[in-house]
Structures are given as structure tokens and as C-alpha cells.
């Protein structure tokens, strides 16, 4: 990323880039996937440095980004490249296993070994957030028990659940879900569409609610 673009990105994330330059930056970003990834990392570093609130800034964002990128790696160490696209939904063990299954990308849901409960959960949140920064490190929630045969699941099935759920998701969550679905990996949507088409002879295809009744809580 050139110094000029870096400064533009910094100014944009600080809310101070003039709109004419924002247009240009936007065009660049939509054309250049690598730049988009860098931008994503910058945005994340920005949030880290801002301490999340984004409200109190003492140093300029650019200065802090430069310090982070060029200086000692006191802040989270960034992966050299995130060329491998991240799936919008992922198995928690981080291992997408395609063993013996054709065409459709298959994900293994590893047996959840820990006893049901909340003890491990705060950690999982922290780990997932960390994943956002250190994108390539495999995520592990519980150590999968090797003996347990993981159930295989076509992405279409999860996509169907999420699509059906998005209808009832209230608030900003729904906007996020739709954006997520819109940007889902091609193979995920492909299998969802294939699942729908493959069942065209049946009465129902694609995810949809056939009947729903409001109940009073």
C-alpha cells in the first residue's frame, strides 16, 4: 500500500477524508481485493487503538497506524497476507474437511466435547475476536476428541437456517445477516441454490417460511 493510499485510508477511518477523495478511494477499494484486505486490517487496528469506542482520539490515526505497522510489534501481529478468503461461517475447530464428499464444500462440525455450560464461553468470544485480527490462526473452541466422528454438513443446510432466521432477526442484526448472505462464499450459495433447484419437483424449494403464527410471550 502506498504512503498516499495509507494516508487516505487513515483519514477516511478518522472521518476526515473529503468526499471527493473518498469517492476515489472507494473506487480503488472496489477494484482491488488486496487493498480491501489491507483496509480491513487497518480498520481493525484502528478499533484496537481506539479502545473500541472510537470516541476519544489524542493522536492522529495515521500516526498511530504508522507506528504500529512500522514500529515494534507491540500491537497484535498481523498476518502477512490474508489472501485465503475467510468463510462467512466456519467450523469452530477451523478444519474444513472435504474427505470423501464431492463437489460441495463440506465442513466438519467437531463433536463438542466439553460439558454443556457457560464456563468456556467467555473464552470463545475472546478467541473469535482475536481471530478477526490474526486471521490465519486456526480457531479452536474445544479440542476435538479424535475418536468422535464429526458429522458432515453441507454449507447449504446452514445457509438455509440463516436465511430462514434472517426474516425474524430484528434490528441491526438483520442488516448484518443480509450483508453476510450477500457476501457469502460462492460455493456456499451455490450449494444452497443447487439444493433449492434439486428439489424443484417438490412443493417447496429454497428457504422460506410456510406458516408462522405470532404467539404472545
Amino acid at each position, binding site marked *: 500500500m502506498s504512503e498516499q493510499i495509507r494516508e487516505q485510508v487513515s483519514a477516511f477511518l478518522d472521518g476526515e477524508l473529503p468526499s471527493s477523495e473518498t469517492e476515489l478511494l472507494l473506487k480503488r477499494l472496489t477494484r482491488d481485493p488486496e487493498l480491501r484486505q489491507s483496509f480491513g486490517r487497518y480498520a481493525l487496528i484502528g478499533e484496537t487503538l481506539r479502545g473500541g469506542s472510537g470516541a476519544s482520539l489524542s493522536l492522529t490515526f495515521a500516526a498511530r497506524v504508522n507506528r504500529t505497522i512500522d514500529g515494534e510489534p507491540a500491537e497484535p501481529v498481523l498476518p502477512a497476507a490474508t489472501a485465503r478468503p475467510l468463510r462467512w461461517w466456519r467450523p*469452530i475447530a477451523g478444519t474444513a474437511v472435504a474427505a470423501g464428499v464431492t463437489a460441495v464444500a463440506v465442513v466438519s462440525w467437531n463433536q463438542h466435547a466439553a460439558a454443556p455450560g457457560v464456563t468456556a464461553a467467555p473464552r470463545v468470544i475472546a478467541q473469535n475476536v482475536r481471530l478477526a485480527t490474526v486471521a490465519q490462526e486456526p480457531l479452536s473452541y474445544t479440542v476435538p476428541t479424535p475418536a468422535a466422528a464429526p458429522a458432515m454438513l453441507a454449507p447449504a443446510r446452514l445457509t438455509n*437456517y440463516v436465511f430462514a432466521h434472517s426474516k425474524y*432477526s430484528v434490528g441491526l442484526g438483520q442488516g*448484518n445477516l443480509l450483508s453476510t448472505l450477500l457476501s457469502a462464499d460462492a460455493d456456499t450459495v451455490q450449494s444452497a441454490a443447487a439444493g433449492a433447484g434439486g428439489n424443484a419437483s417438490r412443493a417447496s424449494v*429454497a428457504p422460506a417460511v410456510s406458516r*408462522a403464527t405470532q404467539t404472545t410471550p
Partner: protein
Amino acid sequence: MRRVSRSRAHWLIPYAAAGVLSLALGQRSGAADDARAWLEKMNQALATRNYDGTFFHLSEGRVETMRIVHRVKAGRVTERLQSLDGSGREFVRNNDELTCFLPDQHTVLVEPRQDHGPFLGSLPRFGADVDEFYVIEALPASRVLGRAARVIAVNPKDQYRFGYRLWLDENTAMPLKTQLCDAHGQVIEQILFARLEMPETIADADLAPAVRTEGMRWVRQGPTSEPAAAALSAYRASELPPGFHLTVSGAQTLGGASVPAEHLVYSDGLATVSVFVEPDAAAQANTSATPSAPSEPMMEGLARVGSGFAFSTVVQGHQVTAVGEVPAQTVEFIAHSVKSFPSPPR
């Protein structure tokens, strides 16, 4: 449905303590009321104004660029959400019909949509029940897109739900930037506008999909006329995290399935979790005259879906999956508590 067993009751202690504390603190502050008023203004703007903007959707170190166009004309709402990153995918909602253009898959999906919320989503009105589980506060003002912005935080009081931070345009109350955060305030997902215009009028052309649909496969979903899944009607969560209650229950046929699944929706007023209960496909095939679908294996475990989680388990030979924009422990808790009841509890 708010029953909490003794074994889980200790979870309630911090929550109860927080409740007592908030009672002790008494009146809401003026700042919180102001924050609430701004959220209302945002909802109003999202639902009733014309807007055309481009935003970044940042999640898990990944960035997607999207365009949103929203028009309200003579009481009709038309909305278009378009991916600008090469796939060419678009969603168009015309009042109550949602059309998904998937040119990379040569497919168009059409389905009725009863919900009328804007694509960008709004926040529900904050009633007393939501107050029990979230704290709304105004943060110091900031700038986004070179515009003055009000910053509002909706913080969860426990670990069963996510929170939001919103940067609202001082002039229009439109959300220029929104963040989904966990209970520690860590950002999980972010939407950031790069351009946002609010024109008086929006031309039809701006709402027409850019996708050429010749030769594409149209998959249209009308309301189906399947009989109610009587055998399934009795599944419910027996225990729920504090504040969640059943808001919707119904039968639904998911893509690729031969029998309807029961769909239950639980909400705390802000966060929503769907629970799907499906009979074992293989067992179903043995007892019905319809040709058996290729049976999918039962699943067990946790997966990330966008910024939320899905947890799947098997209950009495049924596949139970909870999905929602909530922390992992919430979907896990709910899925594990699903049981069949002699008759659907109310």
C-alpha cells in the same frame, strides 16, 4: 417459558444483582433518554427517508463493499442491496417480496417477505424489558464521513447477548457507522459508510438490478400448502437465558428438506435466536409414502454464522439447531434445553 432450573439458577445471580443495582440507581438519566430519542430518530430515518449510499461491511478481517438504495414513494418501499465486489449479487425488496439475484450461480430466488424492516436494520423500541438487559448511553460526539455524529452505545448487561455502537449523523440521524460488540466491548462486525446521499427523489433505474437475468434459473417460493407438522408441534426450549421468550412458532420447509421443520423464534427484545427442530430424515422416509430424500447425517456442534453462531444437537432423534446473532453460549444453552412437550406450552 422463563422457567430456570435450580442447577442453572446460579447464572441468575449477577443478573439479579444488576437488577437490584439498577433499581437502586432509580431514575434513568437525561443523557440516556436523549440517546433513546436518537435511536428512535434513526429508526424513523431508516424506514421513511430516501437514501443511496455505499458502505463497507467489515467482519472477521474481511471487507465487502455494498451499495444500499432505499426509496419510499407513495407508501411503497423499494430497496436494493448490491455487492460491489465482483459477484454481482443483489437483493431487491419491493414492499413484501424479496428477490435475490445470484448471477454467479445463474439463479434468482424470489420469496415473500412479511417483515418490513429496512435492509440496514433498525433497533426495536426500547421498552422496560430491553432495559433489563441492556444499558443505553450516549458517548462523546465524534465525526464520520466528515460529518458531526452522535455516538450511542447499547451495552449488554451479561454475556448472553451482543451490544451495538452507533454513529448517527447529527443532521439526519442516519447510522453512518455501526458496530456489533461483545460483552467486553470488542468489535465483532462493523458497517461503515463511505458515501451517503439522501435525495428527494430516486429514479427507478437506481432500484433496478444491474444483473442481466436472461438464461437464469428462477426459483420462486410461494406460501406452501403443506399440512401442519403435527408431530413436531410440541418442541420447545425448557430453559432460556434471562430475558429470552418465545415470540414466533411455526412450521417451515427448508431448502432440500422433504418434511417441514418446526421453527421457533426466541427474543430478548433486541437479540433473536431461531430454533429449528427437524425429524430424522431416514426415520421419516420409512414411515411415509414419499420417496426418501438423501438423508443428511445428524449434526452435533458449534459453527460460526456471520457474526453469530449456530449450535446443533440431537434431541430424541430430532435435529435441533439454534441460530442467532448472539454469543456461542446462548445458542448452545437454548439448543440443549429443547424438549418435547405433551402439548405445546403457551
